[in-house]
């Protein structure tokens, strides 16, 4: 059995957590992702991407249902992640599934814009 892995960011108004169970990585974000936490988010995404690659996982689910707001700088962090996955050889790419809330209205437009960048690897679930 593969060893467990866990990564977390805990700030006053933002938290991010990632863990691997079996062959699947679960990520959960909550609070506000803004300029104050962009550096933390960048390091978090780089770390989880490296772990997905190391374990050759095929899918990551990202639960943003409790993410109240994300600013454009943090959206750019996700663009970096998505672009990095896209640039991998086909056999090393993995899918990213966003779990979104129908009542957090910015998510529909922002996640839609991210999905349009890479509809071969991104999906958004309500």
């Amino acid at each position, binding site marked *: 059995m593969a060893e467990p892995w866990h990564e977390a960011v805990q700030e006053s108004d933002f938290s991010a957590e990632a863990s691997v169970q079996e062959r699947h990585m679960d990520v959960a974000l909550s609070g506000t992702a*803004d*300029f*104050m936490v962009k550096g933390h988010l960048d390091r978090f995404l780089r770390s989880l991407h490296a772990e997905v690659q190391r374990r050759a996982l095929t899918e990551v689910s990202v639960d943003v249902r409790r993410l109240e707001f994300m600013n*454009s700088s943090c959206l750019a962090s996700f663009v970096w992640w998505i672009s990095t996955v896209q640039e991998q050889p086909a056999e090393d790419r993995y899918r990213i599934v966003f779990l979104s809330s129908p009542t957090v209205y910015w998510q529909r437009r922002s996640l839609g814009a991210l999905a349009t960048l890479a509809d071969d690897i991104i999906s958004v679930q309500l």
Partner: protein
Amino acid sequence: MVPGTASSASLKLEFRLRPHAGIVSVVRRFVEERCAKLGGDPGSVSRVTMATHELLENAAKYSVGEYVHLKVEFNASCDSIRTQLTNETTPVHRARLRERIRLLQNAQESFDLYQTLMRRSFEAGEESGLGLARICSEGELALAMGESENTVTIVAHSHPPRNSQDG
């Protein structure tokens, strides 16, 4: 904060703030709460909230003055949105804003330009200008810019209703 005014379905809020990153989400939440209380389309509340956050955060990053001046107007009955931010900034930043806003104003499809700028954003770093493009595309708002000596005013506003455009 300067006291705002509200009718049954509209409000005007004015803020005089010291520009720092910690105040941005506090103001965004306040604006969201006040606009949501008017009723109307939650999507429109989300749009004015997002525009307010992006403009104020830009000012927090690039303002060189002691205060910024923010005005938010929201009419829930006709989904009318106007967010205006005035701050002092450097000539170099004013020139960048002028160029970016001209690009966005001239875009045939704001979503296509937004996608292009998203792809470039992680190479451009902090000066990606993605926030303004997001206001236009996700927020479906038009941008205008005014300058006076060392201050700049950015206005994000909803497009006129189609029937008023048609005259």
